């Protein structure tokens, strides 16, 4: 089965391998070669100004390496989704199931081993991609990037996304028994699920902490409320909320002079401005929660695909 799975997917393996190698080589070139080409680095670029190509090239290369990494991190799981979408459906399109399911390996084993080998291949690919990304992150450390900003291309969740996309494709292929609709459904629903969870669910894994600023008086002429300072590395997960001294939410915050006039919709000072945020210390916990969700979804989808394969024809 391992050989057959490899033989039927070696085209995909070559594509994924080429993508990873290109990405890895690109990142290595940017990170390793550049300091060798310009031993004085950014200092020479900025101070002497003698080498204009250096000035132009250095930040440009850094930016493009970053965008390639982001692109690779987003595209790699969809590539595996395509692999999943073809692995079952192709058997039905070419009558291959009549061949595959009448050999000495029973259908259940055929499916389970195929799913296992593809998962291992997908995770191995994701590991390479994660290593490339980590290499880049390590080299760029100190650049001041917000850690939460890279949540979606962090190595841990990458494994979950990849496995999920593979399982989603496999289930879609077993459902439609045709490749094109299976690929289409896989890509659309992969993006839909990722966006839904990233936008709608991720902020609620744990109740957010509140950064607050208490304002006793209104400096002269100021309108609106000042934002509280979220601790370094924190992730603001919503709009700031103004509450009065009793803890009631003030919907239309109008900041009045102190002492406040009774009319005009003013509220008595002090006003507290609350900013919900997730602290940097929760980053890896959130990664764990998110990867658990996607691995759980992947297992459910593999179970569905298994059921569909066992009932087919």
């Amino acid at each position, binding site marked *: 089965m391992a050989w057959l799975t490899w033989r039927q997917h070696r085209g995909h393996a070559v594509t994924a391998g080429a993508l990873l190698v290109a990405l890895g080589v690109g990142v290595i070139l940017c990170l390793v070669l550049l300091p060798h080409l310009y031993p004085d680095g950014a200092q020479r670029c900025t101070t002497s100004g003698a080498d204009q190509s250096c000035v132009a090239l250095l930040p440009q290369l850094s930016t493009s390496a970053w965008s390639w990494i982001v692109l690779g991190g987003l595209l790699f799981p969809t590539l595996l989704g395509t692999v999943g979408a073809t692995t079952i459906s192709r058997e039905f399109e070419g*009558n*291959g199931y*009549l061949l595959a399911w*009448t*050999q000495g390996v*029973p*259908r259940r*084993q055929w499916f389970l081993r195929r799913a296992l080998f593809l998962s291992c291949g997908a995770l191995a690919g994701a590991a390479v991609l994660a290593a490339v990304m980590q290499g880049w992150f390590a080299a760029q450390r100190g650049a001041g990037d917000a850690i939460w900003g890279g949540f979606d291309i962090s190595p841990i969740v990458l494994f979950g996304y990849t496995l999920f996309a593979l399982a989603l494709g496999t289930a879609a292929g077993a459902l439609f028994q045709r490749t094109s609709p299976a690929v289409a459904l896989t890509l659309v629903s992969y993006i839909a699920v990722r966006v839904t969870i990233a936008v709608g669910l991720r902020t609620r894994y744990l109740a957010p902490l509140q950064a607050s600023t208490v304002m006793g008086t209104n400096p002269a002429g100021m309108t609106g409320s000042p934002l509280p300072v979220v601790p370094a590395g924190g992730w603001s997960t919503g709009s700031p909320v103004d509450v009065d001294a009793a803890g009631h939410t003030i919907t239309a915050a109008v900041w009045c002079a102190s002492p406040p006039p009774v009319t005009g919709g003013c509220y008595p000072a002090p006003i507290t401005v609350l900013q919900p945020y997730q602290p940097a210390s929760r980053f890896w916990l959130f990664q764990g929660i998110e990867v658990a969700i996607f691995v759980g979804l992947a297992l459910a989808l593999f179970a569905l695909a298994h059921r569909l394969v066992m009932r087919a024809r």
Partner: protein
Amino acid sequence: MTAALEATALSKRFHRVWALRDCSVQVPAGHITALVGPNGAGKTTLLNLAIGLLAPSAGAIETLGWDPQRQPERVLERVGYVPQERPLYPDFTVGETLHMGRALNPRWDEAATRSRLLRRGIPVDRRVRDLSGGQRAQVSLALALGKRPELLLLDEPAAALDPLARRELLTELVETVAADGTTVLLSSHLIADVERVCDHLVILSQGRVQLAGDIDALREQHRLLVGPRMDPAVAAADPAVVSARHAGRETALLVRRDGATPPAGWRSEPVSLEELVLAYLANPAAGAPPPPTLVEAAS
């Protein structure tokens, strides 16, 4: 008689259509059995049920003594199947196809399979998509035989082959069966092929078994009676009459011989296999179990 395949009240329904209904039949071990019937009679369905590609809607099927759904590993490693579509992966080379056979089948016989393909002049490094139809059929058969099957299921093995390729395929089949004692069940429209290689016959019609048994014995059990023209209604009403032909002043009846001697003035002739098969195919009601009466249907 030990049965390599035994169906008991086997039924298969696709949505609202019954492909097989109350089908009970035994395929004897060590023989070549022909499965004959019009298109849509349920031949492929029966073969797919035998290998476990389909699960029965009702009734039971035992292949080599095992239930193909409950013990697929036992059945699959001992049964070779060549579907009508002759499915092969077109982008595989012949060698890779053999590699797959070796990887998936514990009883695989690599040497015999390679020498079989060598004898037929099929290059191992050629891609399957570049083979001729006849060569593809040979590769399909070689793949099925490479499993060292105890039972070989062939769905229209000679269809779409030129006469020479057909003869080679059937020769290959007879040689193998003679050498290994493999049981073969093959579906075919070609009575000449059936006559040449098969010794047992199952006629399937409208999802039911119409006739089953040893071909020589079945021919013995039927006679062609030729005599003066008789009323077609009388002929049709006689349960022993399988088919009747009325031409000019003569009537020819293909009848089941139940020991009775033909009436005076009638000539009794032996039947050929083709006459026998055509008589049953022309009259789907003959030999089939009677339709359920109202009492049975109500119970």
